């Protein structure tokens, strides 16, 4: 198991956003997470990455208890993430964004990271814009940059938060191919996505979150077939 969550809970004041979540993710898996807005998906990511600290429960990464380990250390251990709302370093160029992530996420000399960064840029179709200031990117490129920057930290576990939202069909296909490639290289992936067909074409298991609780986990077909999930998720009466 690369990642284990045991009864992890998180509240903001009276609001319980993550409610005794228990999950195990084997190494190399691609896990999808779905759930309605505000279900606590992004919060779960924040707990795994250390951007938020859990109120209760235990988080293990690579067999080590990381429940109270700060975010920057978890990155160095191999937890990479993208943000749902892209958070580029706006004053830096795309390349510098990656370079920062590579230099600090992996820990190494800048000069040794250049080729790796260039390769990631190529893979995420950002190479052309390498020297453009991130603040001026379009939404699509920002999402690409989120992915690219997360990759640059050299993650063993990659957390993707809604990176396909708002992409056209073609863009989405390319993205799916990219993520498949990353997965194929052995990186464990957890992916929050509303664009279900994209998600289901990559992940092996699907987890449904509602009100901070896991209400279903299993093979995508099974989960998608369940009436409750469809109702909760799309709000459409089937």
């Amino acid at each position, binding site marked *: 198991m690369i990642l284990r969550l045991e009864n992890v809970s998180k509240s903001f004041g009276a609001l319980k956003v993550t409610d005794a979540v228990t999950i195990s993710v084997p190494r190399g898996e691609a896990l999808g997470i779905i759930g*309605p807005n505000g279900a606590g998906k992004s919060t779960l990511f924040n707990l795994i990455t250390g951007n938020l600290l859990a109120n209760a429960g235990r988080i293990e990464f690579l067999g080590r208890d990381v429940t109270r380990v700060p975010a920057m250390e978890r990155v160095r251990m191999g937890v990479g993430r993208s943000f749902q709302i892209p958070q580029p370093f706006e004053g830096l160029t795309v390349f510098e964004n990656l370079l920062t992530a590579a230099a600090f996420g992996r820990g190494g000399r800048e000069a040794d990271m250049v080729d790796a960064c260039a390769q990631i840029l190529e893979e995420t179709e950002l190479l052309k814009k390498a020297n453009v200031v991130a603040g001026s990117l379009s939404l699509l490129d920002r999402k690409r940059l989120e992915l690219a920057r997360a990759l640059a930290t050299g993650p063993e576990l990659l957390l993707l938060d809604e990176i396909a939202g708002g*992409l056209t069909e073609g863009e989405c296909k390319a993205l799916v191919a990219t993520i498949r490639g990353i997965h194929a290289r052995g990186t464990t992936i957890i992916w929050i996505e509303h664009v279900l067909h994209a998600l289901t074409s990559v992940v092996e298991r699907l987890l449904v979150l509602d009100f901070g609780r896991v209400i279903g986990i299993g093979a995508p077909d099974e989960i998608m077939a369940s009436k409750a999930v469809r109702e909760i998720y799309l709000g459409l009466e089937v």
Partner: protein
Amino acid sequence: MLQTHGLTASYGQFRALFGVDIAVGEGECVAIIGANGAGKSTLMRSITGVIRNEPGMVLHRGEPIGALSSAEVMKRGIAMVPEGRRLFPSLTVEENLLIGGQVRKAQGPWNLEAIYDLFPILRERRKNPGTALSGGQQQMVAIGRALMSNPELLLCDEISLGLAPVVIRDIYAALPKIRAGGAAVVVVEQDIGKALAVADRVYCMMEGRVTLAAQAAAVSRQDIHAAYFGEAA
């Protein structure tokens, strides 16, 4: 009554809206749907003057209001329930409500009592700080606060976000009563079913553009899926 004309908006160098045209008629209920980041909230902020634009990009009864401050827009009778509710933490529930009608005191059905009748739970909690309420109750306060000015147009940005289905039902149950008070309503929603149930017309947005404009009754799920996700379902 309200129209946008080629409305554009940016955050710094980042452009979030690309020429959006929508219209809301007197007493009408319009739904705006779209995925995360489609620009729905940005559209709402542009209409209410939180983001300022060229004067002519937003028209209210034919007058350009695109460059007005949010306070001036509000005084014209356009009230908003902002995304995330945004109650004032230092104010009690009652004060949160009162402040909504403090500046613009138009004639109309809505006052403190009427709001308490609409959402009775708030009467019990009126001395509590606004932020001590549950999410649904907070949403009720936010709606009540906007109603207090007796607006002619009410903009609701994701009023069901993060709420339990029962609570969502309660809140949506209030919408017809609000419309009965004479206000036109715009609801921004990701919950397509809910949106379609209340709206007369629907706009779907994607990446800062309107990708679908239709009568709610006439629209098919297919169309929505296409406009929402950018492809056939």
